[in-house]
């Protein structure tokens, strides 16, 4: 335990005193949040977004207009959630001859006028209500997740490769320290660092941007911790035996960038090809962002995020197993 504490303390000091690293971990995500908040603060695009339940091909008139974007949904409740958050302007259920608008949405009102003036079929009007989600509300879990991913994979994976290359690991091997003590000290140190930086980034930007928070902060912290451990375990695979920093760097980027692009950090995967959506399920980041958004935007509780949690824990177990099988001091 004393060995563990000493190793962890040394790693923490190394992190805190490395100014460049501190900048990337703290200020960069803050800039990103503010930057995107500013960039997307202007109005939405000019299209109307209409959720459609049922086969829209057979319906005529309004739904064939080119100025609106039709998004087919199977699940009415899901479409209505989107409407509540102003992500859709209108939902039309062709099967039940009804339509829904959000009573607080001006665009919904315009869309309704266009729809009813079409005079096609007698549809029943229904209303939902809810506050709009700004892009930044949606974006912030993505930034926290992305920052976590970089911090874990480089802060554990790359650092251990560097330690191996320059002989720090060899020197430790010459002491009574066991690999498990060393690795767990790295893991816990990074977990604390990531949780602290995530809290600082979130709380710091929240003061100015007041993010939507429908669920519990405790659940958000819990899923963040679970995802961080998962990412660190992923980083440990790279750290297990690679000796060259360049090779490690290349492999890490190879793993990181697809996750950056296809885990829903910057844009929603909804409406992307099915194959891509399926592929995105293998990324731990997807599961974290999905669960964090569900908590913040939809007020999801533990039961709702349980599937994501289980996947993350399963991946962690797999990553730890693989890295412990591969691990070599030298």
């Amino acid at each position, binding site marked *: 335990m004393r060995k563990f504490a000493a190793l962890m*303390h040394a790693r923490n000091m*190394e992190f805190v005193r490395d100014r460049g690293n501190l900048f990337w971990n703290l200020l960069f995500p803050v800039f990103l949040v503010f930057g995107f908040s500013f960039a997307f603060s202007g109005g939405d695009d000019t299209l109307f977004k209409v959720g459609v339940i049922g086969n829209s091909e057979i319906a005529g008139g309004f739904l064939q207009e080119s100025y609106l974007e039709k998004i087919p949904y199977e699940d009415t409740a899901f479409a209505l959630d989107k409407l509540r958050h102003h992500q859709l302007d209108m939902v039309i259920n062709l099967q039940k001859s009804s339509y829904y608008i959000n009573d607080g949405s001006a665009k919904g009102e315009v869309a309704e006028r266009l729809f009813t003036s079409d005079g096609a079929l007698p549809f029943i009007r229904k209303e939902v209500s809810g506050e709009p989600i700004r892009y930044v509300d949606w974006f912030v879990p993505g930034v926290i997740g992305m920052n976590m991913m970089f911090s874990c994979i480089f802060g554990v994976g790359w650092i251990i490769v560097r330690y191996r290359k*320059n*002989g720090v690991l060899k*020197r*430790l091997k010459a002491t009574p320290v066991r690999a498990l003590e060393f690795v767990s000290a790295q893991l816990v140190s990074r977990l604390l660092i990531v949780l602290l930086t995530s809290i600082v980034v979130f709380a710091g930007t929240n003061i100015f941007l007041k993010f939507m928070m429908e669920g519990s902060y405790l659940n958000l912290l819990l899923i963040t911790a679970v995802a961080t451990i998962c990412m660190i375990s992923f980083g440990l695979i790279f750290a297990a035996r690679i000796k060259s920093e360049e090779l490690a760097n290349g492999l890490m980027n190879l793993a990181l960038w697809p996750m950056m692009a296809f885990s829903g950090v910057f844009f929603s995967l909804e409406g992307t090809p099915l194959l891509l959506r399926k592929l995105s399920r293998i990324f731990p980041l997807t599961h974290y962002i999905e669960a964090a958004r569900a908590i913040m935007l939809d007020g999801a509780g533990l039961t709702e995020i349980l599937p994501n949690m289980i996947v993350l824990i399963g991946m962690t177990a797999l990553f730890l197993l693989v890295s412990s099988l591969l691990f070599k001091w030298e």
Partner: protein
Amino acid sequence: MSSILSIENLSKRYGKVLAVDNISLEIEEGICFGLLGPNGAGKTTTIEMMEGILKPTEGRTLFRGEPIGPHFHQHVGIQFQSTALQDFITVEETLKLFSALYSTHRDPDEVIEICSLGDILKRDNRKLSGGQRQRLLLALAIVNDPKVVFLDEPTTGLDPQARRNFWSLIEKIKKEGKTILLTTHYMEEAEILCDEVAIMDQGHIIARDVPKKLLADNFDGVVVKLPWLSDKQLPDGAVLIDDYIEIHSRDIDATLHNLIHHSIHLDGLSIHAPNLEDLFLKLTGSSLRA
């Protein structure tokens, strides 16, 4: 005296290269043992197998008569040839870190005193000079109050002053009764520090004894050195090494007479008592630092 550390029929093979070829040694407690040899002789491979860091292809290392086990590293201290220290932590923090890694360790103040680290305790590891670094690495090697201290080329790359300074630290550690195993390619270092030496070349131990005895056994007289650039026939008993010749002489008068008699210019001539370097040249026929 009993041997504290011994190796039996140790070999190490890297692919087709046999780096260490079936060597055996016994090291007595409390002495400073020097493993000498040119670069690539197999010194580091041998010492790392003795440290329990490298797995031998064949043979084994015994510590107090027992094969080395999981607790071996509690009792030994190691200074590798090249080791990086963790960045962004200070000398003092590094010492604390390593102290905490052992179940028993000696008073850090003592270690700081022995290795003269008092002035640089708050300095970041990244900002240490070569000599300071080696002193810290030595401190880390004795922080657990080990029985055996392994030092792999500890003074390579240091300036002459820092090297002498480092020797005095090793003398201090010797006086505490610790067994020291040192590799070096500086023969002067071995003559000053070592009670016993083994000379390695191409994976073999080619000579092993107390330095004085090795020299007495192999030499009788002095070494005459003379720059040699001509194509003239070499004088009797002379060996050409690079751009000078060496003559091992029992009768210095006769040797000089002979040189003058052959009208050889004596500019740059030097005469010295034979040292380990001469011994190495004699034994291997090749220059030690080549």
